[in-house]
C-alpha cells in the first residue's frame, strides 16, 4: 500500500487511454476472452429457457420425465459447455494480461536504458524498481478482470434484453426501465463514493505506514526507553483511525446500499408483476419463469464491475509512473557513427560545459589534455563536479560529446559503443550482478577463458578469497554481492576491469574505510595498470594522490588547480587545505 495520492478524474482519463493503447499487443486475446465470456452468457440464457420450459411442461402439462428428457439433456450439455467457456475465458484473459505485462516491462526497460543512468538516479532506484516490478504486476487485475467486466456490463444486459423483448415485451420494458437506474445511481453516488473510497484506502495506508514505520525504528524507541509510550500511541491511533474510517465507510457503503437496494427491489418488482400477470393468465408460466431466472443475471454484471473497482484504481495509479518514464523526452540523441582510430594516443577536452536540467549543478568550461598512460587523479569536495565530468567522459551526457576529442576525433562523431569499448569503469559501489562470480567477471569479456579469469583475479588480489568461497568461481552472488565484504566486492570489480584490459580505466575510489591491507593491495594493482594504460581516478585517499602523475583539483564545477602532489602541496591552495586536514591539527 502506498500513501501516494491517487490520480484525479481528468488524469484517470489519460491514464486509461494509455493503458488501452498498451493493450494492443494482446487485443486479440482480450477480445477472444470477452467473446467466450459473452458466449457463456448466451448459453446461460438458452439454458434458462430449457429449464423453464421443462418445469412448465411438468407442472402444467402433466409431462413425465421421459417427455421432458429431450429438454434436459441439451441442458446438461449446455452446462458442460458453460463450465468450459468460463474456464477458457478466464485463462485467455489472464494470458492477455501476462502478454501485456511482458511488453510493458520490456518497453520500460528499453526506455530506461536509453534515458541512461541519470533518470533513475533522479527518481530514485527504489521508486523506479517498484514501477518495473510491482507496478507492472498491478496491471494484471486491471487487464484480466476489470477490462472484461466493463465489456460484460454492456454486453450481457443487452443480450438479455434482445432475447426477452420478442418473448414478452412487457417484461423487457421492466428491465429496460430499471436498468438505466443503476448506472444513473452509480454516477450519482459514484462521484462521492469514489472520492470516499480513495480516502478510505489512503487512511488504511496511513495507518499501516505508521505501524511499520515504528517497527522499523524499534531499536531507536528502545534506546529512547519509549516503547511503552509508543504502545499507547499505536492503540490510540488505531482507534482514531477506526473512528475516522468508519465515518467514511458509513457514506461509502451507502452508495453500494443504494445499488443493491435497487437491484433487489427490481428483481422483487419483476417477480410480483409477473406473478400477477400469471394469475390473470396474460402470461404463460414458462416465460414468467425465464424472466425470473434472468432477472438477477441482468443486474449481476453491473454489480460485478463494482467489485473490480480497486483493481481499476491500482492499475491506473501504477500507470501514472509508467507514463512518466515512457513520455520522458531524451534531451539529445547521439548520432555519431564513425569508427574510432586506435590505438589511443591522447584525449583533449576543450571548453566542456554540462549542467543538469533545472539546476546549476554540473561542470563549466573544463579544458584538459590526457596522455595515453599514467595515473591521473581528480579531487574536490562532494558536489564539485567530479562525477559529472566522469559521466561526460564515459559518454552519458550526449550534449557534452562535441567538447571531447579522442585522437583528434570529436566524440560526437564517433559511434558511442566504439568509444565505450575503450573504457573500463568501477564506481564507488560496484554492481555485482545476480549470477556466478565467473559470469560477473565475464560481463567484461564474454569469451574469456578460465585462465584469463584466474590471471585477472590474481592481479586484483581476489583469487585467494574466490577460491575460498564454497563453490569458487561458480559461487552465486546474491543481491549486491551479499556475503562479501566491501573490500572483496571492490576487488571483484577491479578484476572485471582488468579482464577487459581496456586502454582507459576510470574509477571512483570507495570513500568507505576499507581495511588497510585491502587498500594497499588495490592501490598497488592500479598503479601497475597505470604503467601501460591510462587510469583516471576520482581520488578520496591520500595514498592515491601521492602516486598520481597528475592531479586535477575541482571546485564548483571548475578545475582550479593541477599538478603533482609535491607541486600542489607547496602551492598552499585548495589541495593543500584538503590534504592537510588529517595532519594539520597535530
Amino acid at each position, binding site marked *: 500500500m502506498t500513501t501516494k495520492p491517487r490520480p484525479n478524474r481528468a488524469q484517470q482519463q489519460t491514464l486509461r487511454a494509455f493503458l488501452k493503447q498498451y493493450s494492443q499487443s494482446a487485443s486479440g486475446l482480450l477480445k477472444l476472452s470477452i467473446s467466450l465470456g459473452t458466449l457463456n452468457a448466451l448459453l446461460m440464457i438458452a439454458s434458462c429457457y430449457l429449464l423453464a420450459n421443462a418445469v412448465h411442461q411438468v407442472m402444467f402439462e402433466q409431462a413425465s420425465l421421459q417427455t421432458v428428457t429431450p429438454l434436459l439433456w441439451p441442458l446438461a450439455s449446455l452446462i458442460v459447455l458453460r463450465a468450459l467457456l468460463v474456464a477458457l475465458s478466464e485463462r485467455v484473459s489472464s494470458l492477455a494480461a501476462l502478454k501485456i505485462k511482458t511488453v510493458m516491462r520490456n518497453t520500460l526497460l528499453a526506455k530506461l536504458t536509453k534515458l541512461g543512468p541519470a533518470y533513475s538516479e533522479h527518481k530514485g532506484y527504489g521508486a523506479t524498481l517498484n514501477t518495473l516490478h510491482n507496478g507492472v504486476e498491478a496491471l494484471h487485475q486491471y487487464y484480466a478482470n476489470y477490462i472484461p467486466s466493463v465489456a460484460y456490463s454492456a454486453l450481457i444486459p443487452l443480450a438479455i434484453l434482445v432475447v426477452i423483448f420478442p418473448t414478452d415485451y412487457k417484461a423487457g420494458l421492466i428491465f429496460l426501465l430499471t436498468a438505466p437506474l443503476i448506472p444513473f445511481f452509480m454516477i450519482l453516488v459514484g462521484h462521492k463514493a469514489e472520492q470516499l473510497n480513495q480516502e478510505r484506502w489512503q487512511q488504511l495506508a496511513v495507518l499501516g505506514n505508521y505501524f511499520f514505520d515504528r517497527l522499523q525504528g524499534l531499536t531507536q524507541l528502545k534506546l529512547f526507553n519509549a516503547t511503552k509510550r509508543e504502545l499507547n500511541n499505536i492503540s490510540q491511533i488505531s482507534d482514531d483511525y477506526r473512528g475516522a474510517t468508519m465515518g467514511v465507510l458509513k457514506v461509502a457503503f451507502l452508495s453500494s446500499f443504494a445499488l443493491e437496494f435497487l437491484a433487489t427491489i427490481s428483481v422483487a418488482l419483476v417477480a410480483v408483476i409477473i406473478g400477477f400477470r400469471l394469475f390473470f393468465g396474460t402470461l404463460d408460466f414458462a416465460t414468467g419463469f425465464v424472466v425470473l431466472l434472468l432477472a438477477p443475471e441482468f443486474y449481476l454484471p453491473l454489480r460485478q464491475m463494482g467489485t473490480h473497482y480497486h483493481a481499476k484504481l491500482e492499475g491506473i495509479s501504477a500507470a501514472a509512473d509508467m507514463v512518466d518514464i515512457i513520455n520522458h523526452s531524451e534531451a539529445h540523441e547521439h548520432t555519431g557513427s564513425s569508427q574510432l582510430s586506435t590505438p589511443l594516443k591522447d584525449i583533449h577536452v576543450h571548453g566542456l560545459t554540462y549542467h543538469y536540467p533545472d539546476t546549476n549543478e554540473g561542470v563549466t568550461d573544463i579544458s584538459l589534455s590526457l596522455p595515453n598512460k599514467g595515473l591521473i587523479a581528480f579531487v574536490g569536495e562532494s558536489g564539485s563536479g567530479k562525477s559529472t565530468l566522469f559521466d561526460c567522459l564515459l559518454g552519458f551526457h550526449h550534449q557534452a560529446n562535441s567538447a571531447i576529442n579522442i585522437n583528434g576525433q570529436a566524440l560526437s562523431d564517433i559511434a558511442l559503443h566504439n568509444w565505450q569499448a575503450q573504457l573500463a569503469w568501477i564506481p564507488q559501489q560496484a*554492481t555485482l550482478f545476480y549470477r556466478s562470480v565467473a559470469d560477473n567477471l565475464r560481463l567484461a569479456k564474454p569469451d574469456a577463458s578460465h585462465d584469463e579469469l584466474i590471471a585477472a583475479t590474481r592481479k586484483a588480489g581476489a583469487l585467494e578469497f574466490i577460491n575460498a568461497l564454497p563453490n569458487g568461481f561458480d559461487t552465486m552472488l546474491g543481491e549486491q554481492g551479499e556475503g562479501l565484504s566491501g573490500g572483496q566486492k571492490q576487488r571483484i570489480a577491479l578484476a572485471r576491469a582488468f579482464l577487459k584490459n581496456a586502454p582507459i580505466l576510470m574509477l571512483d575510489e570507495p570513500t568507505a574505510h576499507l581495511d588497510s591491507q585491502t587498500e594497499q593491495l588495490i592501490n598497488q594493482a592500479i598503479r601497475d595498470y597505470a604503467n601501460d594504460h591510462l587510469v583516471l581516478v576520482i581520488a578520496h585517499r591520500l595514498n592515491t594522490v601521492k602516486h598520481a602523475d597528475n592531479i586535477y583539483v575541482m571546485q564548483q564545477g571548475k578545475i582550479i588547480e593541477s599538478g603533482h602532489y609535491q607541486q600542489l602541496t607547496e602551492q598552499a591552495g585548495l589541495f593543500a587545505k584538503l590534504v592537510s586536514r588529517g595532519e594539520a591539527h597535530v
Partner: protein
Amino acid sequence: MYNFIRLLKLCKPHAGMLLLGAFLASLTVLANVGLLAISGWFLAAMAAAGIAGVHMNYFTPAGVIRFLAIVRTASRYGERMITHNATFLLLSEVRVKMFATLSRLNNVDLAMSRSADLVNRLQNDVDALDKFYLNILLPIIIALFTIPIVMAFMSAYNAKVALICFISLMIIGVLLPVLLSHKLHKQADTETRLSAELRAELADTLKGNRELAIYQAHDAQLTRCDTLSQQYNSQLYTRHKAIANSNGLSIFVIQLTMLASVFVIIPLVATGAMKNVELAMLALFVLASFETVLTLPAAFIELPVALSAAERLFSLADKQTPAPYKKHDQVNNQHALGLQLTNVSYQYSGAHNYALRDINLSIAAGNKVALVGASGSGKTTLVNLLTGLWPLQSGSLKLLAAEHSIELSSLDANERFMQLTIVAQQHHIFDGTLRENLRYAAPDATDEMLLQACKQAELGSWLNNLKNGLNTRLGTAGRKLSHGQSRRIAIAQALLRQGHFVVLDEPTESLDNHTKHSLLNTLEKVWADKTVLTISHDPVMLNRVDKVIWLEQGQIRAMASHAELVENQPDYVELITRF
C-alpha cells in the same frame, strides 16, 4: 489447528462485535436464499391459481418478498459496517500485541542486525492477519450457521434433494478450495523465488546502468530480464489456470446439482407425490442455496497463508521467555559514568570471524574518547553491545560509578537507558512532525527546550527557514532530510536526554568547517561533565578528544592520543584522510 485456536483467542476481546457481524451476514444470506425460493414458489402458485381459476391470498407472499428484499439490503449494510468495525478492532489488537512482543525481545532474537527484510516479512504477515476476520473467520461462521438452516428447510420438502445439495455445497465450499489452496501453496515458493530473482535482476539493471553500457552488456542483460520475466509469468499462469479451472468447475457443479434436483423431483410431481409448484420453488432454492458458501473458497485459499503468518508471529512471541524475577541493580548515580570492558568477544551467528575479539579497555568517567576503524572493524558491534540490546556473549561490560561498578546486564532496560544516551548508526526519523520526533527522546520537554536543542545541534537556521517550524512533517511521507540533517536531529535528541554516558556516531559528517567547530564547542560545553564516546574519522573531532581507540578486524590496534597516532602510524593518517 493450534495456531487457529490461538488466533481465535486473539479475537476474544471483541467476540461480541465479531458475532454480531457474522449474525447480520448470515441474515443477509438467508434473506437472499429465501427471496429467490419464495419468488419461485409465488410465481408458480400464481400461475397455478390462475389456470385453476381459484382465488389466492397473494398479499402475504408479495409482502414477504418485499420484506425479504428490504431485510436483505438493510442487513447487508449493517453487516458491512459491523464487520469492518470489527476488522479494525482486531487489527489494532494484533498490532498492539505484536509491538509489545517485539519491544520485549532483544535484537538478536529479532535478527534485526542482519536482515533488513524482517520488517518486510512482518509487514506481509500482519497484513495477512488484518483480513483474518473478514476473509476467513466470517465466511466459515456464515457457512456453519446458514447451511444447517437451509438444509433443514430443503429436507422438509425432499431429503434426497437436500442430500445432493449438501454434497455439492461441500464440494464447492470445501473440497475444491482445499485442493486449489494445496496446489497454489505448492507453487507459492517457486513464485516467490522467481519474483525475488526478477526483482534482483531488475535492480541490477538499474544500478548497473553505467557498467552495462561500458561493458556493452545491455542487450544481454535485457534479454536476461525478459527471460526471467517470462519465466515468472508462466509460473503465474499456472496459478491463474488453476483458478480459472476451479471457477469453471464451480459452475459445473452448481448447475448440475440443480439439474439433478429437477431429475429427482419431476417423477414425484408426475406421480403426484409432490405438489407441482414445489418444483419451481425447489429448483430456485437449490440454486440460491450456494450463496451460503459463496465466500468460503476464498477463505480456504487464504487460510494457509494466514496460518503460516500466525505461526511466525506466535513463534516470535514464544521466544520471549519470562525471565525469572531477578533483582535489578540501581545506579543511583548523578554523575558521569566510566566504562570497563574485560575480555569482550562477539560473534554474529553464522559468521566465520569474530566481530570483536578479546577487547579490554576502560574509559574513565568524564573522559572524551573517539573510536576509529575501517568498515567491519567492530565499531558498530561495540556500540550494539553497549546498548544491551545485543546480549553479551563473553567477557564483562561494566559501568563505573563513583563508588561501585555495575554489570550492564544487571540493569533493566529502564535503568539502562536512564544512564546511557546512544545515537545508533541506523538512526530512524519517524513519520511525524519534528516535535514528535524530538519528543521521543524527551516526552516532557517544552517547546523552548526542543528549540534550544535544535539550536545547539546547529539546526537553528534550518529550523528558522521551515514554514511550519516544529510542526514540519518528517519521515517517509514528509520532508526529505539530507544525511547531515538527520544526523543533527539525532544529536538534538541526544542533547534532550539526561544519560551520563553518551555515545555518538559520526556527529560531524557533512558539516562545513565553521558549523563543525561551533557544534563541537557546544557539545564540549553541554557535556563537559559527561563521558562521551564518539565514532568519528574527522581529524577536527579526533584532535579534541582525550583518547583514540583504533579498531581493526575486531581487535584494538592502538589506543593513544590523536597526536601520538599521527606521529607514529602512517596507516592511521591514511585512514582518517579522506577528501
